[in-house]
């Protein structure tokens, strides 16, 4: 407890700070209790449950679940989805962040809201939009069929869906860092004769690296974990278009609860790693923002 962060704690020693008339020492304890109880009911107990269920029959069955071909294929697809959508969204995010943070123009708030749109659009609606564009009866459907390209119920559609839902993270995290950093150093570099590219690699990138990394981690977590949008466009065919989150749901529906939880543990570990890295990077960038 630091001095500049006073609280309702009533300790007899700090008489020099102002205190409410009716100081009640039990108030903080009750409030902390309620907060933790609520979090436990909603988050902690379910989270712990994932791990306990996965290992309920021991480590052997857990491992044998993880070596099933359907699981391995799903894990491989999930990895591929992240590997493809990550660079796409990074390039977009960096360009958008640079364009927005380095310019003051009318309608800037509108552009920021547009970039946030994929967050507020329901994943199912996102999937639906992709189906309406690339599906058999969609805009590009006839052309795609004529050229024998399959997007819906195939991997490319899953990539589109994944890239869509994880689109804003990099831009969102990098914009505030770029704004705070200012462009003095970039201009100094320019005056010294540096090219745009050199400025980006040597001046801008080092200064935004933690914010960028933070954005990348969130993009990755969302890309690997996306369910709704991918589920709409993939057709959910085992061994073909089933990513790990889809595998979890499918196994659960087939009453293979253990297989579902074994896969869920991996995704939960991904979440834990994400949270740990997020915490580390938050301290480095000192940004606390929603998503």
């Amino acid at each position, binding site marked *: 407890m630091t001095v500049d962060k006073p609280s309702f704690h009533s300790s007899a020693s700090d008489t020099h700070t102002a205190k409410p008339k009716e100081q009640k020492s039990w108030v903080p304890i009750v409030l902390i209790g309620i907060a933790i109880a609520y979090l436990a009911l909603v988050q902690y107990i379910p989270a712990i449950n994932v791990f306990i269920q996965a290992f309920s029959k021991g480590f052997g069955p857990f491992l044998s679940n993880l070596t099933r071909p359907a699981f391995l294929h799903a894990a491989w697809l999930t990895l591929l989805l992240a590997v493809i959508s990550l660079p796409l969204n990074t390039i977009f995010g960096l360009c958008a962040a640079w364009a927005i943070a*380095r310019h003051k123009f009318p309608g800037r708030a509108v552009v920021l809201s547009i970039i946030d749109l994929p967050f507020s659009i*329901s994943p199912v609606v996102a999937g639906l939009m992709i189906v309406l564009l690339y599906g058999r009866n969609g805009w590009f459907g006839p052309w795609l069929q004529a050229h024998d390209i399959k997007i819906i119920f195939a991997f490319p559609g899953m990539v589109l869906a994944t890239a869509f839902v994880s689109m804003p993270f990099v831009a969102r995290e990098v914009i505030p860092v770029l704004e705070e950093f200012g462009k003095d150093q970039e201009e100094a570099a320019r005056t010294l004769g540096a090219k745009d590219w050199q400025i980006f690699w040597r001046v801008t990138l080092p200064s935004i690296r933690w914010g960028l990394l933070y954005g990348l981690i969130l993009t990755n977590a969302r890309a690997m974990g996306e369910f709704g949008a991918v589920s709409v466009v993939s057709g959910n065919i085992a061994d073909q278009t089933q990513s790990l989150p889809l595998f979890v749901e499918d196994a659960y529906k087939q009453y293979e609860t253990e297989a579902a939880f074994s896969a869920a543990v991996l995704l939960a570990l991904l979440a834990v790693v994400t949270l740990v890295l997020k915490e580390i990077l938050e301290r480095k960038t000192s940004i606390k923002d929603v998503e």
Partner: protein
Amino acid sequence: MTTVSPSLEVERKIPFWKKLGRVPWTWRITIGYLTVMLFIPIIAMFLKASTEPPARFWAIATSDIALATYNVTFVTAIFAALLNGVFGTLIAWVLVRYDFPLKRLIDATVDLPFALPTSVAGLTLATVYSDNGWIGSLLAPLGIKVAFTRTGVAVAMIFISLPFIVRTVQPVLQEMEHEIEEASWCLGASQWQTFWKVILPPLFPTILTGVALGFSRAVGEYGSTVIISSNTPYQDLIAPVLIFQRLEQYDYSGATVIGIVLLLISLVLLLAINFLQAWARRYDSR
């Protein structure tokens, strides 16, 4: 100067519309990517919806089953967001103002629903809250069924929207000046009075912003809600699942119409959130 670099000082003095002719490549990539990924899909959806005659559009959008799903989706989401509004604010308050063991850990794990894939969330919530689950078995003797009912949908929505409220309120609470509270205490106000009359009013727009963000996420949520719900029409079928079912039956216009309703509502919410944020910021300037 043909190759325009975005950070040149001169550029700011030229009006935006005159620059359109020589757009920097960062803008081209941004606009290009947004066009392919966002604008064209949205336009495609609106055009698809516009092929329906207005009367038919209205009939699909307000059919009994659609209205029932809106009821389940929106009413449950509002309930979840408001409940989280109360408890999320409390959690933010506790995290900002008090010190207790494992506080850092609890602070970090508030973001768990952001990081945990939604199908995993749905799976574990359905298990924990099922009749023989850890929490569900305690509620079952009381006659409360959670999993595979509308209550279950509410639980999933509460899970998914909680961090939005906590993370929106927390920084604002952190920056709030403690002197005002102390002044209020010096003038003889009780803790309760201080909370209602001094702390809550400037915090209120922020809490509402958080609730709106949480609501918007809960309305669109699919992964966790579809697993914990039994997806029975008129009982716990949510709008995103109805879209999915329509698509599975190759009823594209049905899916599109309900999709448009959801999309319009998320656009309205986006506007509301921006407005609320502007409202919340007005307190800063004072």
